């Protein structure tokens, strides 16, 4: 594959944007559902993983359709821009870094059609996303605990500290996220074979 063919064209940018919006719609619905329908603990542990699980088919089709370097970076920027709109602009640089990391994983020729490598990068993308979204928990930990002091027993606060902002919890989240997004990716590959490739749309 030569260099000219490897550069993103306007057409690819548009494809990436439309698919990313679809992913964002799903992410938004997921977040609302986990927040409303499950306990905060479940939400905290699982929501990024579930996003990775549910968005995977869209991402698989998108990356196979575009199949050019920059897919992860654009996805990262797009996600970051959207999170900015949702009220967390600090996440934009984090997402750009995530995108770059995934681009490094995807170094090589015509790698986007290689499901293994793409799957690894995809899981890493969501794992880093989970890590990134835990940042404010670490920042505001003191503040929350302070405000809870009056109405809570020391015991209760201890469990909270264990839950939020402890490294082993974070590790657990990363593991859950990687597993769920990897499952999603495999399912996505299957669905793409079953539908999109059969219909010759990629």
């Amino acid at each position, binding site marked *: 594959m030569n260099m000219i063919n490897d550069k993103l064209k306007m057409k690819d940018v548009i494809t990436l944007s439309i698919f990313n919006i679809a992913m964002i*719609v799903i992410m938004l619905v997921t977040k609302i559902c986990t927040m409303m329908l499950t306990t905060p603990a479940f939400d905290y542990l699982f929501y990024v993983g579930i996003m990775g699980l549910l968005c995977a088919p869209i991402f698989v089709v998108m990356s196979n359709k575009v199949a050019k370097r920059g897919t992860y970076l654009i996805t990262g920027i797009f996600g970051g821009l959207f999170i900015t709109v949702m009220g967390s602009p600090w996440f934009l640089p984090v997402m750009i870094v995530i995108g770059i990391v995934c681009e490094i994983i995807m170094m090589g020729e015509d790698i986007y059609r290689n499901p293994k490598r793409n799957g690894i990068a995809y899981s890493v993308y969501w794992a880093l996303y989970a890590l990134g979204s835990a940042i404010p928990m670490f920042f505001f930990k003191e503040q929350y605990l302070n405000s809870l002091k009056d109405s809570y027993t020391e015991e209760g606060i201890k469990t909270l500290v264990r839950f939020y902002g402890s490294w082993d919890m974070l590790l657990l989240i990363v593991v859950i996220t990687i597993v769920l997004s990897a499952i999603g990716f495999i399912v996505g590959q299957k669905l793409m074979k079953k539908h999109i490739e059969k219909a010759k749309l990629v």
Partner: protein
Amino acid sequence: MRKLDNRTYIILLAVSTVFWFLFYKNNQIHLSVVLNALLLIYIREYKKAIKFAITYIMMILLACLFAGKIALMYIVLNMLARSIPIIMVVTCIVSGNSSELMSSLQKLKIPKPIIVMICIMIRFFPVLSKESVAIRNGMKARGIFSGWQDYVKHPFLAYECFIIPLIIRCIKLSDELGATAELRGLNADKNRTCIYDVRFGLKDVFAVIVYGTVIGLIYFGA
């Protein structure tokens, strides 16, 4: 309509994000919501100002209700309430005019693909939300997955039935939109012009100074 330049909003967004990280008391967040409501009123988005203010107050009240009982709920609600001042500033950008926005971003030397992305996001986020509702209606209209029991019984099938039409619609939309872009000069290697006068004027300098001072006062004073 009284408007500030989009670059002003971006500066305000950066300023309020930095202070957002620095704020350590809830009072400071309360005050920054007031400040941003005044900003929205200044650009004559009265309805939005009221809407955000009410949402914020509701969240804070709910959080207080949960404070003694479910600590996790308290934290979650507080996190949400905390993002409201930022969303208010972003609203100034998103609810404005995309043509002006493109022009401002171009003056900031943002690469064209990203400008196009932002423009498509503003235009097509509502479109795709409608598409997903239409797919849901399509399932119902065919009489499959009409009740929630069906979803519980076959969650995977339900997901497949939703995601496949969505992907197919996305493929079609992006193909056609790409062709339209090609035919309407979006690929042209030229600087975009704009029929509106996009300028960073005195008004904007004034707004940045006042906003910066007030938010500084909130930080050091409260």
